[in-house]
């Protein structure tokens, strides 16, 4: 550092401190508690479960995490603004259904590679368009009627689910072309493509929330929507953007869902709805809005998935895993609220 010699030491110190604070807020290191918990879980499981630290575990981890992860990313954006999107699963399912339907009705058995590719592209575009429309409608309802997002999305969830169930009669649709399935199950240097998609999406969402004017407006709306409006931010337009972004993330989730289940249905993954909120809050997202990071969410997801795979290898039931997820959530939130009291006790 090229500081004048008189203040050299001081300046260097300050520079270092600045760097440390920047590191602490910029990295998931801001969630030291969660990182410690994750590490403790990994160590604990590898001590008690034989073969826990194996390539197989890592592989299944990378195959199981993406769907829940993407759905949680779709949830975190509205959560930042103090809202909620209860329709994410319904949106994802309907988008997946539409894409499968297009692919299986339009691709003739003897179609050439070129037509298949074109139709897959068409299906993807249609899915994306559907998600955009759903996001726009939800966003407009939330922003311009002033109805609480829980209610609006409860309504849109019912409506979207209803349409999907009505059209499919509750049946699952299969018939994904081999080319699509093969591409989805590909790996990059041993890492499944769907996991790469999750990481890329997480980075994009994280950068948007942290580094763009839109993302900062979201956090401001979550803290105080009136004050944000008086700061000449068009809160309504931002809110519409929030729900569009959430829905578009659902489109990515729908792609991953098609790859993992090889089919689409109106009632896949319904139990994930509350788990996404659980993961977000565990990751330090304030359910009233304003605070939260994608890094924290990813750590929380990793913790949940490690618990689930660890107990699976122990041979414990899935139900017990969900119960333990709930208990961990209460524990983490309790520690967060009680920490100031502990600190007070210690300093006395």
């Amino acid at each position, binding site marked *: 550092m090229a500081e004048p010699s008189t203040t050299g030491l001081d300046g260097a110190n300050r520079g270092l401190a600045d760097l440390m604070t920047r590191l602490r807020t910029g990295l998931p290191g801001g969630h030291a508690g969660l990182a410690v918990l994750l590490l403790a879980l990994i160590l604990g499981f590898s001590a008690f479960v034989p073969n826990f630290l194996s390539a197989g575990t890592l592989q299944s981890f990378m195959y199981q995490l993406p769907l829940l992860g993407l759905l949680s990313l779709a949830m975190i954006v509205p959560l930042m603004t103090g809202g909620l999107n209860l329709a994410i699963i319904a949106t994802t399912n309907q988008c997946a259904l539409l894409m499968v339907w297009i692919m299986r009705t339009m691709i003739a058995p003897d179609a050439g590679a070129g037509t298949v590719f074109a139709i897959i592209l068409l299906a993807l575009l249609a899915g994306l368009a559907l998600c955009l429309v759903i996001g726009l409608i939800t966003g407009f309802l939330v922003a311009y*009627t002033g109805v609480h997002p829980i*209610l609006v999305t409860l309504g849109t969830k019912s*409506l979207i689910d*209803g*349409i999907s169930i009505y059209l499919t009669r509750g049946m699952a649709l299969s018939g994904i072309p081999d080319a699509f399935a093969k591409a989805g199950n590909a790996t990059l240097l041993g890492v499944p493509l769907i996991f790469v998609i999750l990481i890329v999406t997480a980075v994009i969402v994280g950068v948007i929330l942290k580094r763009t004017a839109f993302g900062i407006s979201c956090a401001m709306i979550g803290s105080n929507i009136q004050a944000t409006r008086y700061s000449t931010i068009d809160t309504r337009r931002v809110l519409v953007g929030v729900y569009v972004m959430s829905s578009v993330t659902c489109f990515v989730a729908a792609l991953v869902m098609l790859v993992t289940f090889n089919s689409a249905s109106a009632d896949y993954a319904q139990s994930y709805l509350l788990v996404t909120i659980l993961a977000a809050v565990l990751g330090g997202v304030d359910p*009233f809005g304003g605070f939260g990071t994608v890094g924290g969410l990813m750590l929380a997801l990793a913790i949940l998935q490690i618990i689930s795979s660890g107990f699976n290898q122990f041979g414990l039931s899935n139900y017990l895993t969900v119960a333990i997820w709930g208990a961990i*959530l209460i524990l983490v939130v309790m520690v967060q*609220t009680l920490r100031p009291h502990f600190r007070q006790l210690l300093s006395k």
Partner: protein
Amino acid sequence: MPDDRSAFSLKALRRRPEMWLLAVILVVGTVFALAARDFLSLPNIIDLLETYSVQSIMAMGLFVVLVSGGIDISFAATASVAQYCAALIATQLGLPAPLVIVAGLLIGTALGCVNAALIHKMRITSIIATIAMMSISFSLLMYFSSGKSIYTLPDWWTDRIVFYQTETAVGDLVRITLPIVTMMVVALFTWAWMTRSSIGRQLYAMGGNPEAARRIGIGIGKLHFVAYGYLGFMAALAGLVQAHRVGESVPNAMYNTELAVLSAAVLGGASLTGGIGTVPGVLLGIVLLAMLQNGLNLLGVSSYFFQIVIGITILISTSITVLSSRRGRRHRIIAEAPGNG
């Protein structure tokens, strides 16, 4: 029905969100009555009342929590746990009826109080605490019961109890049964308790502005336990009634009803931010959803279509309520504060 004192003033009526709901119900009812002959028949109405009694009892409990400014997602799980435990006690230990019922209700109340403790003592947001509690209690129930139903409920539990019965001119049997009576008693009690008692008024005050309520000397902590404990009690009661109706205890029978009950309560004008809502309004919300489902069934519309209708109803009615009350919202809250019944 809405407040008698303001019933003569059209202006006051128009300000009440329930009036919109009542108008919608009348329109929908007329349409169904004209289209489906059986819709307004006495047996059909009584049947509807009995079918929706369980949801109504839960909605009364949820209403109290919503008024107090909180939200609870876990009550359906609570109802299942209380019901299943009571069924276990009755079949395995063979205890007499009063003990089983008291035990079931106590379990529900205790689970409600755990929610209150998490929310008040640990300062966990109510939606987060109850989502966590829902995962815990329902998953543990499924784990320990391995999803097995109990079919051998004792006779005192499953025997129909008929308070009044009559035959219509066509020969249909009309019976006022225990679930209907329970629902009516619960609704009347909740209404009287919330509008005529000191605790009820304090709950409204707490939901409207917790800090102000605390400063005028209202015990916020105690009220949390009262509200969530009451919901736990009502959930357990609903669980016991549900087992009475179907004659067995299925651990996941009531799972996923929480959003339906919540929609009904909110349709009926209970505010998610607390302090606003009435018992008649919540009941009207349930009536509307019940009428839609039943009417569409009678018209032969596919049951798959039903969810679409629910979705549209929620969207339209909540938007209308909010948009219509936006003008002079502050005026309305102040003017109506003494008459929230």
